[in-house]
């Protein structure tokens, strides 16, 4: 057991930290972390940030050097996330391009596809989204009905996607569509396309969330067009391309865990500052008990992650154990936000400009419902863990 950081790793951290200090948007480190509200300005702000990361060589550190990356080690990726969470860096508008589509194309794209997309992904000229879920294919993703039919040398695509994050900004979409149908094995016959979002057949419509935000979209495909050259991997074998793609996003959950830890520390601060009956919340014995319990669980989930990371480092790929991280972090995030709201008492209902206490807790609470649903509901996660990690029998209907 060894929690020390190598000299190289420490140097990496310091290099990133000092680059950030010089390159973050003006005033960021002094606490001015407001992003533009208006969509175009928001998008431009984040594209500018992505461009800056690219110029500094920090856009895609895990990519091979030949494609503009740094060949970063897993530990360097972890450090990268830690630092970004530490200073609440602006979000990465091309998260999907950088962490998923890019690595997938590098690994299994055609030369033409690499040529066409890789550089633009890096710079943020091409912002990507993913077209997976559909109204009738949520947890049961293999049930997608969006279909692609070959006409001449074109694929004509029709259907509807939903919960498409970054769809409102995206230039390109990594799209799953049905190209044939196997009654027994629904996940066969799905093909992965690189779809241009700027064409007449593609229309996006924002989804208003319960927290008032609009981070997801419906995407309507009406005779949208792609070519053979836009197919990733083999025809009808898009399912495995998607699985490989998701595996490329190997450290995203780490960022969520570091965020959880940071929020817990914020919670402690709030409980120290906020008073009820003339004493700080943190002096109330009931709250101390609950907070001690949360401390253990936040610690524990982070340590689980490090343990799973160790396995990945040793065997070169993640073990089945790592499937627990997403379930744990999303459920715990929700529970912690719920608790943070509760202890604010009646003042906790005040919202937006009228809030007396930082309403990040309220926002987190509402947003957390998305976390236990999106990217595989907690129920689906439990099935996966039960079946893959524990070897329990497959569920009904799967």
């Amino acid at each position, binding site marked *: 057991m060894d929690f020390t950081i190598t000299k190289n790793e420490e140097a990496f951290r310091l290099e990133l930290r000092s680059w950030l200090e010089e390159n973050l948007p003006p005033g960021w480190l002094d606490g001015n972390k407001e992003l533009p509200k208006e969509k175009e300005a928001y998008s431009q702000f984040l594209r500018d940030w992505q461009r800056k990361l690219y110029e500094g060589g920090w856009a895609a550190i895990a990519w091979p050097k030949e494609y503009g990356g740094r060949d970063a080690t897993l530990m360097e990726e972890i450090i990268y996330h830690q630092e970004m969470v530490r200073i609440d860096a602006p979000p990465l508008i091309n998260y999907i391009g950088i962490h998923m589509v890019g690595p997938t194309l590098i690994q299994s794209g055609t030369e033409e596809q690499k040529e066409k997309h890789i550089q633009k992904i890096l710079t943020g000229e091409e912002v990507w989204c993913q077209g997976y879920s559909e109204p009738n294919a949520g947890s049961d993703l293999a049930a997608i009905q969006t279909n692609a039919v070959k006409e001449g040398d074109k694929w004509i695509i029709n259907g509807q996607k939903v919960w498409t994050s970054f769809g409102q900004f995206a230039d390109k979409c990594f799209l799953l569509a049905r190209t044939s149908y196997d009654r027994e094995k629904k996940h066969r016959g799905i093909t992965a396309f690189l779809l241009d979002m700027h064409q007449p057949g593609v229309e996006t419509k924002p989804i208003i969330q319960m927290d008032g935000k609009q981070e997801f979209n419906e995407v309507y495909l009406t005779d949208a067009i792609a070519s053979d050259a836009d197919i990733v991997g083999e025809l009808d074998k898009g399912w495995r391309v998607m699985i490989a793609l998701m595996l490329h996003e190997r450290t995203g959950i780490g960022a969520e865990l570091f965020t959880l830890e940071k929020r817990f520390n914020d919670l402690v601060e709030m409980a120290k500052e906020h008073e009820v009956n003339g004493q700080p919340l943190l002096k109330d014995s009931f709250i101390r008990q609950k907070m001690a319990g949360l401390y253990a669980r936040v610690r524990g989930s982070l340590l689980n992650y490090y343990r799973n990371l160790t396995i990945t480092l040793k065997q070169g790929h993640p073990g089945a154990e790592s499937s627990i991280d997403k379930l744990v972090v999303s459920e715990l995030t929700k529970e912690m936000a719920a608790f943070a709201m509760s202890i604010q008492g009646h003042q906790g209902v005040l919202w937006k400009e009228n809030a007396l206490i930082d309403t990040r807790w309220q926002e987190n609470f509402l947003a957390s*419902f998305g976390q236990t649903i999106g990217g595989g509901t907690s129920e689906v996660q439990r099935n996966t863990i039960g079946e893959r990690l524990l070897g329990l029998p497959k569920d009904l209907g799967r």
Partner: protein
Amino acid sequence: MDFALSEEQEMFRGYLRKYLDDAGQTKLAREYSKGKTDELRKTLQGLSALGATGINIPEEYGGLELGTLDLVPVFEEMGRTLLPGCYLETMGFAVPLIKKYGTKAQKEKYLPEIAAGTRSITLGVIEPKTDFSPNAIQCYARKEGDDLVLNGTKTLIPDGDIVDTYLLLVRTEEGSGKTGLSFVFVDHPDGAQMQLQKCIDESKHLAELTFEEITIPKERQLGEEGQGWSILEEGLLYLNAALSSMMVGGMEKVVDMATEYAKIREQFGQPIGRFQAIKHRIVDMKLELETARSLSYYANWALESEEQEREATIYSARSFATNAFIEVASHNIQIHGGIGFSEEIDCHLFLKRARYYESYLGSVNYYNEQIASGLGW
């Protein structure tokens, strides 16, 4: 032994449900969030015509002179549709206190208008940046001849913008603690400055009222001078019995939504209600609902009884329903999956309402402590 609402009460519920269904259920709450109140006012008048605003008001003041249990169907049905407004505070707090402590003039002024649906009353207890305790009440009513001169601020006043009268807890003697507190009525045009406050539950409008040398006649005082806190405690018995019914109504709708969705939504070729993770969770939600309902019925019954453990009975209904409402509303979102996270579906409205009520005039811990002390522990 007859532990159920009467046939008449259930029949009345039927009328109310039909009426509120026709009015678009949560549509009114959604419009209210956007500041539109026309439909709402019409609906409230319609409910009044159905008798909802006269139930616990004596006949001599134009009411139906029925019991607190007769209010239960109204609270539940309003909870079910998240109907905006101060029916809870008016019928579940002001009316019983006016009946008990009001002067003849006060009764004559307020009760007939309440019964007719032309006046609603809200509550101003909390002050900015303070907790729910006697010491936190610092709004001061100075005596000047036959008048009281108000200075101070009341915050988090429910639906303060559409209401006609505020029942305020103020300090009539300087100092701290429970002594020296009194209730006073302040009618809308009495000159206070109002500022609206955004609420996480947007179908609740909150208001902050600031009083600077606002003069009201002394006869606006409700009950004996200096007895404000114990009048509040009496009122909280009524309010919390009523509130627990309101929450039960919301929970019922939430459990219905989850159940119906689980029957029709298919994934993996199965209605999701066939999966035990969903099915068993809905069953647990149903248990929470039924337990909350039993407690709330009994709480409302206990209001008019000699029930020994009256406080503990009522506060246990409040405390249990508070947690249970949050829990079932949260599960309902998860069961709905993606669509449950969208603004379009009502799931989130119930969760936000549940959280709004969580610490309304006392947190769950506060009421648990009241149960304990009420039982002599």
